[in-house]
């Protein structure tokens, strides 16, 4: 067992709580820095995808996991960021300016979506964001003069003047820098009073209002930051896949993002990364497993959808805290050995309409 004996106020608010954190996260950062020389190029490309989806996942985790506003149309913000980046880079604007604009435009769109969110709760918010996602997808498809419509849009590699980043390694380092920056921003946000306000809104809006938290301001801020992160992730996504078309940002993509956040573990930063790893690794595992299954199952087209759905059902039924929750339980077991009790992470039942029993 590890005992944290605090002798200083600063120890309470430090980013890395103890030496173990510093050691393991330092090792992770070293591995990520050395990755282009350690792992093959194909897996480096997959790792880049993981980083991009993790940025978007951080945004959605902030919105759904930390503020409790679940958004079924998040792919719309991804699409807005991606197309903004594509249009600007194709027009020759340098990369840092273009990505900042993509983030800001997505944030503005997010705040616009957030406005009706202030009046509606729960499932109605999901419906509003779903409706909004469809509208944005249709606009992207119809506004052909800017987005190229259904015929798609080619994207130039990121460039500042004549220095362009078009190799896998250079793009990987760009994504790594942006991911680390975004993670530090979100971790610090959650340590601050704004982050605590978000969590208060998730837990009970009425109590939060009683404590003096201005609901409208914080909800709009949450939508804005989450959409900005999705926009930045979308901009990097546009450069990675190099060819955009509106159907990549449909409801299926939104559901994939939600799947990532739920399976990773709602309400934790690690959950975004674990979910992104799950989302990228799953198709590879299915492709490998296909060789071992009888051909009737293995070669069928619906296999990926079935496996995703099954994993989602199993996680919600048996492990609602997601992959990170399972890791927490294992770690707590070993930390408290032999005093771990079975009901330590028991779920609480709650109903929205009162007078419900079971």
């Amino acid at each position, binding site marked *: 067992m590890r005992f944290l004996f605090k002798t200083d106020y600063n120890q309470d608010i430090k980013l890395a709580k103890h030496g173990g954190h510093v050691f393991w996260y330092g090792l992770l950062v070293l591995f990520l820095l050395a990755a282009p020389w350690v792992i093959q190029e194909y897996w480096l490309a997959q790792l880049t995808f993981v980083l991009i989806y993790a940025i978007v996942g951080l945004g959605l985790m902030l919105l*759904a996991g930390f503020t409790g506003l*679940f958004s079924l149309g998040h792919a719309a913000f991804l699409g807005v960021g991606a197309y903004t980046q594509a249009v600007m880079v194709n027009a020759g604007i340098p990369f840092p300016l273009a990505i900042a604009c993509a983030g800001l435009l997505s944030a503005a769109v997010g705040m616009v979506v957030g406005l*009706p969110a202030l*009046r*509606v709760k*729960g*499932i*109605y918010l*999901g*419906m*509003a964001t*779903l*409706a*909004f996602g*469809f*509208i944005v997808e*249709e606009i992207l*498809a*119809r506004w052909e003069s800017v987005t190229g419509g259904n015929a798609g849009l080619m994207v130039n590699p990121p460039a500042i003047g004549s220095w362009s980043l078009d190799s896998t390694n250079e793009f990987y380092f760009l994504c790594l820098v942006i991911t680390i920056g975004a993670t530090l921003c979100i971790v610090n946000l959650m340590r601050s009073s704004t982050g605590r306000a978000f969590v208060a809104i998730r837990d009970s809006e*009425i109590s939060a209002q009683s404590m003096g938290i201005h609901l409208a301001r914080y909800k709009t801020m949450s939508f804005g930051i989450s959409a900005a992160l999705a926009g930045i992730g979308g901009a990097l996504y546009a450069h990675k896949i190099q060819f955009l078309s509106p159907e990549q940002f449909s*409801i299926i993509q939104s*559901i994939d993002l*939600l*799947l990532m956040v*739920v399976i990773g573990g*709602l309400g934790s930063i690690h959950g975004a990364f674990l979910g992104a790893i799950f989302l990228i690794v799953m198709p590879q595992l299915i492709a490998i497993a296909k060789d071992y299954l009888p051909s*009737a*199952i293995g070669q*069928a*087209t*619906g*296999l*990926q*959808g*079935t*496996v*995703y*759905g*099954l*994993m*989602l*059902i199993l996680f*919600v*039924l048996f492990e*609602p805290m997601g992959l990170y929750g399972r890791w927490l339980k294992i770690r707590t077991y070993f930390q408290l050995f032999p005093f771990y009790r079975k009901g330590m992470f028991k*779920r609480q*039942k*709650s*109903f*929205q*309409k*009162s*007078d*419900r*029993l*079971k």
Partner: protein
Amino acid sequence: MQLLQLLIDGISQGCIYGLIALGFVLIYKATETVSFAQGDLMMVGAFMGLALMAFMGLPYWVSVPATIIGMGLFGGGLERVVIRPILGQPAFSIVMLTIGVGFVLRGVITMIPDVGTDTHVLPVPYAGGVLRLGNLVISAEQAMVIATTAVLCGGLYAMFRYSKIGLAMQAASQNQLAAYYMGIPVKRINGLVWGLAAAVAAIAGLLLAPITFVHANMGFIGLKAFPAAVVGGFGSLPGAIVGGLIIGIVESVAGFYLPEGFKDIAPYIVVLLMLVLKPNGLFGEKLRKKV
């Protein structure tokens, strides 16, 4: 006259949306969960009808009741296995669960060799017939949709008003504690409600199949039924049908009078307007909970 034709088309499409929305609202009233699996249940119902009619060669008047009863049992089983353990968890988790169920249903149907990935024609006895009233042209499929929806609504109204099971369902959805006190087996009633919702989805699938043919992506129409449920109000059964009709008419009229592309997003614009102006829908109830 063009407008009347558009209205008829809109009403017939709206009846389908209304039937799926009816399933949503039934489930929401009984168990407080929003089920994203209704569209895919409709698709499975259509495939079950196809299997009975086309592959096993049973006559229409045998396979339709068989499909409805089969899907009812499937819905009840789904509730027992997947939904009952999860009641009381945050609404978001349950929504993700039903999305997962939808994925699995769609994936399993697609995996069936040769059948899953093709588009099939459902052999119905009234296919191809046309009714003419002056300048109006109503196809037999559309007339069947409207007629069946009307009969179904009348039947459900009678059931909820006069039969003991209907009263028990209403009681369980209004105040669960009181229902327990009155001796109503609430968990079993919830299973029945899911079965009923799945049966309604199967009817919608069998009605829609002659119009759009049977294929694995039929379930996406369910996504358009959500605006119908929101417009009508999530807690109201007649609201679901009325909402469906409104969405169908709006879609049909927007497709003709507005520029291209508005047809698909018109229902969603209506939803956003509804959420801003009247968040509880046309017939919705205002919920109050003591803090």
